[in-house]
């Protein structure tokens, strides 16, 4: 699973005591946007089926943004592979260091590490909030999620929010 927001969400649901399946569903829903990135990239990255299989793993926010910002197809392909590969290596290296280092930290709360995930989500969210509608959706999602926390098991509020925004998107589509 090489898509950061999905990783964070799965771990977040598990950490809150939720079911791994609720976490997996949330991770997949967050990863759905990569399918649309792939769609845009598939015309840029020509090549056979094996190249597609390899390229798919590198489709993330960063590699897509770098690839579609170029004028020349050649530069796009280079940007995609270079960004995808370097983020892949560094991200997984960082994950490994974190997994090994966490054992050396007796109480992560003292270091404020429980405040890190929300800040990370916020930083991932911010570039998507450039208009009034997404800001309204984000605020509603936060309120609905908090209202559900005391009444349903951990992880389920996220799924309810996903269903609601899905219905909103499908119903409200005018274009």
């Amino acid at each position, binding site marked *: *699973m090489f898509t950061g927001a999905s990783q964070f969400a799965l771990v977040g649901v598990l950490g809150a005591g939720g079911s791994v399946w609720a976490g997996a569903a949330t991770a997949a829903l967050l*990863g759905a946007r990569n399918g*649309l990135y792939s769609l845009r990239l598939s015309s840029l990255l020509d090549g056979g*089926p094996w190249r*597609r299989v390899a390229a798919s793993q590198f489709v993330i926010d960063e590699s897509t943004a770098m690839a579609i910002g170029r004028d020349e197809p050649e530069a796009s392909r280079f940007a995609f592979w270079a960004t995808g590969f370097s983020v892949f290596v560094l991200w997984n290296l960082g994950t490994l260091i974190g997994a090994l280092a966490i054992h050396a930290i007796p109480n992560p709360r003292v270091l404020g590490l429980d405040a890190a995930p929300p800040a990370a989500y916020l930083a991932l*969210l911010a570039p998507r909030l450039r208009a009034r509608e997404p800001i309204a959706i984000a*605020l509603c999602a936060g309120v609905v999620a908090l209202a559900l926390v005391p009444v349903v098991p951990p992880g389920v509020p996220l799924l309810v929010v996903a269903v*609601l925004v899905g219905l909103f998107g499908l119903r409200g589509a005018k274009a």
Partner: protein
Amino acid sequence: MIWAGVLTACAACYGLKLAGMSLPRHLLEDPRLQRTVPLLPIALLAALVAIQTFSTGRSLVLDQRAAALAVAVVAVLLRAPFLVVVVAATATAALLRLV
């Protein structure tokens, strides 16, 4: 059980990427899909921010994480890079717990 869920999520996340590369274009160019899918990360990330800041388990709480989030909001508004946002929030929570 946990690993089965993790592996399923991995397969789903990769499968969605491969589907975008391989499926016929007209299936995925449906305007309703194009409109709805980008809304999912907005709603889910916002819900995650709210839940992981203002709740522990199944109870709503207001603690140092709220102040950390406020600092993160300011950092984001100042267009600080990702790491600065995260470190600023972490440091805020740690400092408040120290005093």
